[in-house]
């Protein structure tokens, strides 16, 4: 089975992110492989264990390739970096376009991605790639059952109020949610191998795309302004002892906050 995993390197959830100006953010230099992408990599590796084949990790990034190295360290066979100066300032749709351009002539059986990237929290690229490739997609899967890759597969998806069970034909794209699996921790020797791996770079021209397909001029959505999160006024600590404090709280919620 030919499996492709879309990965992205994002700031660590602990990294400090601040608004520097209307148009600029200050992001602490702490990056890691997007949490949900690791789940996707793990899912791909498990399928290769079951059906044989090849797992390739794929990213669109001009600078950072550690997510690709993480994929190799976990056990992926190959890593591809789509990189081009013209991609600077691209929105998610342009990124999806580049990925789809790469994938369209590959014999993929399955494409996996994380449910969203922890920087833009958008969840656009996965479904967008599926649309451009004309394949079905299912978001936020927490269960995946493939018995015969040539037949339909069963996926379980997280929805409000429960879990939805769907059947889907392959090839398809699934975005992975926490709970699908527990990503393996790479072994030292594999990390070393990954550090030495030559990563294939592909540019827009090789994808048959032009500068007009990428970058900020092609962007369909743009950031007009960055804002700090609204600051809550300092907490009102209820000083009374028990049980007066409970009564005081109810009163405040009723009369001041007016939420009950």
């Amino acid at each position, binding site marked *: 089975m030919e499996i492709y995993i879309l990965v992205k390197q994002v700031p660590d959830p602990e990294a400090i992110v601040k608004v520097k100006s209307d148009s600029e953010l200050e992001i602490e230099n702490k990056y890691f492989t997007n949490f949900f992408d690791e789940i996707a990599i793990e899912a791909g590796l498990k399928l290769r264990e079951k059906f044989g084949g090849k797992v390739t990790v794929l990213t669109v990034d001009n600078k950072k390739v550690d997510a690709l190295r993480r994929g190799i360290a976990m056990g992926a066979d190959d890593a591809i970096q789509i990189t081009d100066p013209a991609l600077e300032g691209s929105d998610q749709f342009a990124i999806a376009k580049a990925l789809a351009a790469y994938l369209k002539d590959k014999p993929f059986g399955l494409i996996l991605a994380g449910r969203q990237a922890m920087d833009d*929290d958008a969840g656009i690229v996965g479904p967008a790639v599926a649309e451009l490739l004309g394949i079905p997609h299912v978001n936020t899967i927490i269960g995946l059952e493939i018995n015969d890759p040539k037949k339909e597969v069963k996926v379980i998806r997280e929805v409000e109020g429960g879990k939805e069970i769907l059947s*889907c034909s392959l090839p398809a794209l699934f975005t992975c949610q926490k709970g699908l699996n527990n990503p393996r921790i790479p072994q030292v020797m594999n990390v070393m191998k990954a550090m030495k791996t030559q990563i294939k770079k592909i540019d827009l021209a090789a994808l048959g795309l032009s500068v007009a397909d990428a970058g900020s001029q092609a962007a369909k959505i743009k950031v*007009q302004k960055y804002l700090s999160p609204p600051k809550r006024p300092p907490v009102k600590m209820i000083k009374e002892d028990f049980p007066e404090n409970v009564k005081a709280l109810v009163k405040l919620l009723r009369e001041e*906050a007016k939420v*009950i």
Partner: protein
Amino acid sequence: MKFTILDCQFSIDFLKPGILKNYKLEIVNRKSQIGEEHIMSNEIWVFAEQQEGKVRKVAFELLSAGAELSKKTGSQVAAILLGSGLQEAVKSLIPFADKIYLMDDPAFASYTSDAYLINMAPLIKEHQPSILLGGATSTGKDLFPRLATHLQTGYAPDCTGLAMKENGKLVAKRPLYGGKVFAEMTFSEARPQMATVRNNTFLVNQNINKSAQVISISSHTDPSSLKKKVLGLEKAAGTKLDITEAEIVVAGGRGIKAPENFKMIEELSDVLNASVGTTRATVDEGWRDQKDQIGKSGKNISAKLYMAFGISGAIHHVLGIGTCKTVVAVDTDPNALIFNYADYGIVGDLFQIVPALTEELKKAMKE
């Protein structure tokens, strides 16, 4: 194209090539819609997501928002509704919209992106609304990115605010980096400007009092061409709303100490008609289900009231509650980080406070 003239009202049916399905003609409003031209309109459309024939609350919130936004441009507000057995659903929507584009067909009973997209896309292309809004629900977040790609238009996901510029351009506010910063997004010239919006971002305005014209559209769908099929739904135990939809959420963290102790949190939630949330700690321990997890790798909630019991306030959790209107925290540690993110705080023993709070609330609700 067929015009049916009834009592000075026009209703327009569209007969599409392909498989003709039964269509219903429902004339409900009394406004005339003469000479509707198929040019770029400034209409605001809302995807009226429904489940089992009932329209989700977020759709009413967005129709209310649409009504407010449209004041600047004088636009019309329309709902687009797909499903099966939608009589009640249509009725509920009528006061909230100027138009309802209705697709009632068994093929739409359960949401699948392919069935919905195939049918929505041509309608949108034809009418070119300026704005298309949907709830940031699992359906919305599944449909909208794909639809936007299909329509080659811009899409802002999971928004926490919307504003309209004079020229009809939408400004969508959304969180980034888990909520550490926010961004105001604007759109290119492509239409419609699409956005999914978080539950509870807008209030439902019961006083809009519109009278929607219902326009029935026949379905294009050949069921055999669909690549996905919903086999079933494993409903979560209990009848409470998902934490992303609930107006009030009460949550317990590691401080609850044991899974059985969640019972008192649940009793509190019953009194408040709230949903019960939790943190990653308890989910990883196996005490609570992941669907209730609030935080970076879980869900973001926008409740009007959030109460945290025995939750220390680690960053990955508190980012999930940033847009809650009122936050109450109870913890034994006066230095707990959670107090930095709360409006009201009590340093105390939750095992005492929660049952007392439940009792006190029962009394207060009775009055």
